């Protein structure tokens, strides 16, 4: 088991999470309600209330490395039921942003899927499902993903072969471009 040195708490990290999420992490009293309701707990390495606790104690490394951040489905169960009205899902989101920025991706497939999706949007202005599948398979190396479903989906016309390009494609591409230049974080 990992042992934490509480004295080495990274208080800047705590402050950054609080600033970016506009949530007061100190109000979490570790009741576990978020964990109790989180449908993804079974897949997590740290349960969501443990993530909250690790943030409280300034354990930056442990938080940003956690696979849970990548598996959160943003289902809002935690946020809706937290007795202290903490927007827990938002905190998870913010930690995932920070993990991304710090170069962590402990659930690589999830990250690759998100990247492929956004690439697709950047390229076409809209998500082009078949294209994004292909990119995902190529980048993740999981070439057999959902091949079992392809025939069904194709037969039913659910996966058009061509993207639906839009006129404002460049406008959308510029959103991404400016985003990358600006280094916006929020």
């Amino acid at each position: 088991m990992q042992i934490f040195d509480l004295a080495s708490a990274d208080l800047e990290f705590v402050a950054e999470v609080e600033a970016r999420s506009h949530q007061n992490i100190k109000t979490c009293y570790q009741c576990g309600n978020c964990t109790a309701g989180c449908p993804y707990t079974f897949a997590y390495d740290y349960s969501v209330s443990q993530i909250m606790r690790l943030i409280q104690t300034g354990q930056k490394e442990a938080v940003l490395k956690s696979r849970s951040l990548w598996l959160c489905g943003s289902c809002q169960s935690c946020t809706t039921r937290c007795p202290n009205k903490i927007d827990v899902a938002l905190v998870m989101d913010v930690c995932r942003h920070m993990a991304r920025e710090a170069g962590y991706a402990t659930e690589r497939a999830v990250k690759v899927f998100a990247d492929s999706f956004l690439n697709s949007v950047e390229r076409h202005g809209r998500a082009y499902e078949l294209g994004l599948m292909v990119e995902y398979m190529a980048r993740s190396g999981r070439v057999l993903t959902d091949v079992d479903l392809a025939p069904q989906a194709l037969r039913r016309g659910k996966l058009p072969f061509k993207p639906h390009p839009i006129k404002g494609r460049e406008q959308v591409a510029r959103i991404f471009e400016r985003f990358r230049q600006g280094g916006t974080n929020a």
Partner: protein
Amino acid sequence: MRIGVFICHCGSNIAGTVDCPSVAATALTYPDVVFSTDTMYACSEPGQDAIIQAVKDKNLDGVVVASCTPRMHEPTFRRAVERAGLNRYMFEMANIREHVSWIGKIKEQNTVKASELVRMAVEKLRRNRPLVAKRFETVKRVLVIGGGVAGIQAALDCADGGQEVVMVEREQSIGGKMAKLDKTFPTVDCSSCVLGPKMVDIAQHPKITLYTCSEVESVGGYVGNFQVTIRKKATYVDWSKCTGCGLCVEKCPSRKHPDPFNENLCNAPSINIPFPQAIPKKAAINAASCIMLQKGKCGACAKVCPVKCIDFEMKDELVTVDVGAVVVATGYDLFDWHKYPQYGEGRYKDVITSLQYERLLSASGPTGGHIKRPSDGKEPKTVVFVQCVGSRDKSVGRPYCSGFCCMYTAKQAILTKDHVPDSQSYVFYMDIRSPGKGYDEFTRRAMEEYGAQYVRGRVSMIYPKGDKLIVRGADTLAGTQVEVPADLVVLAVGAESAKGAVQLGEKLRVAPDQYGFFVESHPKLKPVETNTAGVFLAGACQGPKDIPASVGQGSAAASKVLGLLSKKELESDPAVSRVNPARCVGCGKCILTCPFGAIKAVADRFGNPKAEVIDTVCQGCGICTVTCPQGAIQLEHFTDNQILAEVNALCPPKIFANFE
């Protein structure tokens, strides 16, 4: 005026950093000071004697003592000057110990400061006038509002102490929540066995008058002399004749309204006696469901009643009593757990409250003491308890701990095992709060001897699956999510202030806190007093409390009442506000501002409106004095002139400074 000044050394406490003789010498230069000296221990017997002697020898009519804080010895010295034959308000104190010698290191500065404080005291004293406390007789009777265990204890102690007691209870019977409980922690003795005899005592005590189905309509007057109007609600049964035989209850054909005594677990007839040990044991009709009162036909009860006491024409009645003191013991109510939609909002019949569970456990309850779950009457094998439902939860506006639910949950887990030996209980908790004699041992027993499985974490949702309820919670100690398929879920609902508490508080001028619990005078040192003289608190109306604490407070309130009424007469503090009718224009601003309702509107002999302070009600805060645009209402002993004199003593007005 002839003023004497005494500068205390307090051994070296003061003299160590203040030049006392020099302060005394300077004081002689102040106006009206005819005598000044320093003294070793002013409060000691020789010290006091010296003051008395000086008053007599020098013919003083005012005394200033510069010593410790007036919060300590002001009463001592007031008594001393009184013994010397002066009015006790012809005395002022300068605090040169706590505010000077103990906080300043430089003797010169301290000495100057001490001199100035003495000067302030002298200037104030020059404007003092003798004040005489009013004496008034008290009514030797006490009103107890609320007949739960706290009110019962207060009433019995007062009555045993020789005072008349009037008890007003909103429900049909006294007993409060405790009457609904099965057994009580930490001893697990039968609730009605311990409470029952006390309830009977209330009914039989010659000094106690009991009004149930009644509420306080209005309260006037002040400590020692309250006038209280009580509304006796129509019961449609003449209680002077009803013998409580119960024949009517058996015959009543209307049985559709939920039974509040059994927490709506079953229905009750429209004419009912809530439970076998009810006090008074009289029948009453629930007008809303009575067929006769709603539709004009039936009258089955009237036909069977052997003493003919049913009266469908009965109306509410108002009764007025004079009392000298009031004990408020209106208890608490339960949090409405429907505010948690994730627990089913009442869609799942087998999710019940802790108090409903007490009724299921109780031999006098709807199931005769057998635990049967509401949906299908089956005996539950897996019972899940959820603590802190509506407590310690900001999102539902209840951030406080209800104090007793941890303990009663442990009790209920124990009783569950007693009733159903092959059952398994689970308790979801956040923290266990068991600070009391034998309390923590009790909760440990629930776990160690009775095998209750305690799980640290809140419950996020409850949902049905087949005939089970899935309780999904967290086990934060294991760090993960847990699920329990339960047969019955018991919610440890928190306590909130009794319905109507805020309105009652307005009538009594007792402030509720933001959650509706009444505020005590001081959280540590005056726990049963309120800021309204003569009104006392007992039990859970002041904040969530278990039975031992409620009983303790009931007795404490009674001792305060007995202390108050044991005096033949009360003396009012004369440092109250006074209206100068010549300046008062009757604008009424002071009346609106006074937090104690101590000012009333009167008419002078020309019929002009004027304000008048009720000496006995005024607490001497002086809020009105600042409010009055005419300067017409002045707080005695702290008048504008007196305070401005102190200001001027510290900062002499410029105009005079220029011409002096």
